[in-house]
């Protein structure tokens, strides 16, 4: 059965473009122009994945509300935020609404499709029994590339997909400086420098919530970042 994806986006052209691209990848697409329509439909039937724009028609943060309501309906449903503004990334992190990933609208359609596929893969991997083959361990850090799960000192770190790929790229070669472009390539996104910086900041904060002494992600000014063991 085709996986069903809900796209909540108030810009019709964009909505249709996303829908067309994802449909080409074999997903069933439902599109909604505002929060009310989307919520009505979600009450009847939950999609397998939701892509939500933050600003919806006249509700500047309608996407956040929608995400909260959707999370109330299902704890596992993967949610991707799409934003037009970089600064919203921080807002999302502050709200900790449980989104699995957030992308700026600069993302290209192939990247979006890849990101959707990755999320589904993570869900599938979580349902399957463990296989340890893809696990990277760096001191207190362990990364399961299959399930896209990260733990620090055994405690799970809830990273978004983009963040996961960044940590993964850094931790695989500790000590090597990864510049921003390399990190973007690893995460399959097109982001500007500021966005990378705010992703890094948020990741550090997430690790520091588990271990206040966390200092493994180092900034190499003007070049990029590296993982220090």
């Amino acid at each position: 059965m085709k996986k069903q994806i809900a796209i909540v986006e108030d810009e019709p052209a964009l909505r249709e473009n996303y829908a067309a691209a994802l449909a080409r990848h074999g997903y069933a697409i439902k599109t909604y122009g505002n929060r009310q329509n989307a919520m009505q439909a979600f009450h009847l039937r939950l999609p397998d994945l939701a892509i939500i724009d933050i600003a919806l028609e006249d509700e500047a943060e309608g996407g956040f509300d929608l995400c909260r309501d959707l999370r109330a309906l299902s704890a596992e449903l993967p949610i991707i935020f799409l934003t037009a503004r970089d600064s919203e990334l921080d807002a999302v992190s502050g709200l900790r609404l449980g989104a699995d990933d957030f992308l700026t609208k600069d993302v290209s359609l192939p990247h979006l499709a890849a990101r959707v596929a990755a999320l589904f893969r993570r869900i599938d991997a979580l349902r399957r029994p463990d296989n340890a083959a893809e696990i990277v361990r760096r001191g207190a850090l362990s990364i399961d590339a299959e399930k896209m799960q990260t733990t620090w000192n055994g405690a799970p770190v809830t990273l978004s997909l983009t963040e996961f790929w960044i940590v993964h790229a850094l931790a695989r070669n500790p000590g090597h400086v990864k510049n921003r472009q390399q990190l973007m390539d690893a995460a399959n996104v097109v982001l500007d420098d500021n966005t990378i910086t705010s992703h890094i900041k948020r990741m550090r904060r997430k690790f520091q919530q588990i271990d206040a002494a966390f200092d493994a992600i180092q900034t190499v000014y003007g070049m990029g970042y590296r993982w220090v063991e």
Partner: protein
Amino acid sequence: MSIRLQLLIVALTTLVLPWAGCQYARELETALRDSQEKSLLASAGTIANALSAQPQRVFRDPDDAAAFDLKSADLYVYPLASLPLLDGYRDDWGIAADPTPLPTTVGYGARVQAGSTNRYLYLYIEVDDPRFEAEPANVHPDRDRFDRVDLTLQRADGAPASYFFGTNAPGLIAAQSVVTGDDGRSRVVEEPRIQAFWLQTRAGYHVEARIPLSFVGTRLWIQAADGSGAGKAGMSAEDAPQGGRLFFTMAGLDELLGTFIREGTRATVIDANALKLGTAGNLGASSPGEPDAAESWYRHFMAVDTSSFPVHASKPDRQDGHSVSAALAGSPHAEWVRSTASPELLLTAAAPLVIDGRTRGAVFLEQAGDQLLSLRDRAVTHLFNLTLLATASSVIIMFGFATWISLRIGRLRAAADSAVSSDGKIRLDMPESGSGDEIGALARGFERLLARLNEHTQYLRTLGGKLSHELRTPLTIVRSSLDNLESEDLREDQRRFVTRAREGTLRLQSILSALGAAARVEESIKQAERMSFDLRDVLLSALAAYRDGFPQARFALETPLDPCFIRGAPDLLVQLLDKLIENAVDFCPPLRTITVRLERALGSYVLQVENEGPPIPPALHGRLFESLFEQRQGRDDKPHFGLGLYIVRLVAEFHGGTAVAANRPDGDGAIFTVQLPLI
């Protein structure tokens, strides 16, 4: 010319006040003088009328109207205030020497002066005869020759009585006369009541004689004769039967006059010959003390010119001057004269003394003009002081007012000059905007203007961010559409168009990114967290990246050897450095050096990025760091919105520092300096 100076000059026009005061004072003086003349004339007329009613108190012989004639040896008898000592000297007479020469035909010099007290007639006779010839013993006056002075007096009964003075030894002598005895022989007897002192001097001899008034009538004859030769002066009763008349002042006239006059006035009665008959009163002390400097200055400044006044030098026995001659001619007259003695300025008035229809003399009054002068001076000084005070205070007030106005305008001007600061910030409040006058209105006008300018500037400043944001969605639509289109089965030529369209969107994307850069930095500054970090470390790693990123440029780094910790946001600082380096690379010719320098200064670090290349045009100084300020000629295809250096400024200010641009001292390049305080 400053407003202050202009108003000062305007204020100086109030100097016309003292000038008008001077004019007024002059007119006042003229009027006062006029009235003083009139009043003095009136006084003189009154006294003259009073005197003409009692001529016997004025003239010893009211009926004798003959004129005083010097040639016929008429003699004026000075009133003497005290009894002179008979010593041959005239010094103790208390009057000026004014001897009358005796008529002579042979050049024998002899002079006589007469004076009287209420009991005696004094005669003082000087004879220029240095050789003394003594009177022989048993003299025969008709025969013997010796130095002698003959004196013939007309007695009260009209008969003449002859005496002569002669001596064999100078000293106190008595008059001698020839008497005819009962035997018919004449002999010489002394008249002890007529005393004299014979004083022989080198130039001649003096005879000072004292004659009781009972011996004296109205006429006398005096003759001096040399003992040897024919020297002779004067006249004898035989030669001139008329003789010389004696002109006495009337006893009691002075007292009578004194009842008419006031203090500060001197009255003199003269006869038709202008001889003084009586005088009373004095002119009083001159002006009280020396006039103080201010008064004399005023006087000098504006006194009526007195130098044209005739000089009045009074003679002891007679009065002259225009007013006297006018009065003797029958008409009263007043005149201002200058006196050689104090007081300097005199008002004189003379009125004719008319008896029985004939002008027999005049009453002459003198009054010190200084009184008037000091009166005038007091008034004028007062007026002058007042007007000067008024002028001075109006000048001071005007000056103060002008200073205040010009200070206010200056403050407004300074505020207007600095309203738009070099970093493009606009100060909206103006000084003086609270005041209700025109300056306040001007200040409020400025405020409105600045508010509009500020709105406009704010609009421009946010325009980039807004545009970047608003264009993002349509751009995303285009790009996602192209993505979809690419996944269709396209012909090769169609795919080419899609590729071009994609390139266009990429460029559009970078333009939007540049446009929104400042807004993004402002956003991240809002969220930035401050931490302590090593500035030197950041520079070292960043510069390594620039060496990779800009292979066409050479970088030199000068830093202190030890870490340089400051508090701030390293990410933002790297962005600042990015912008400075991008700017330097843009202007630095290939293979020339860009120097990045970090130095410790007092309380701050100084970060400099210096590039070789063209200097900054002078017109751009101070504006480079403004938002949306871009003057460069395009040298590359990157979009420039004049935001790079604006971002540098934003980050520097976030760190509490400043950013300035200057040219290298040798003119070959530019230096951008960012100062970052330690705290």
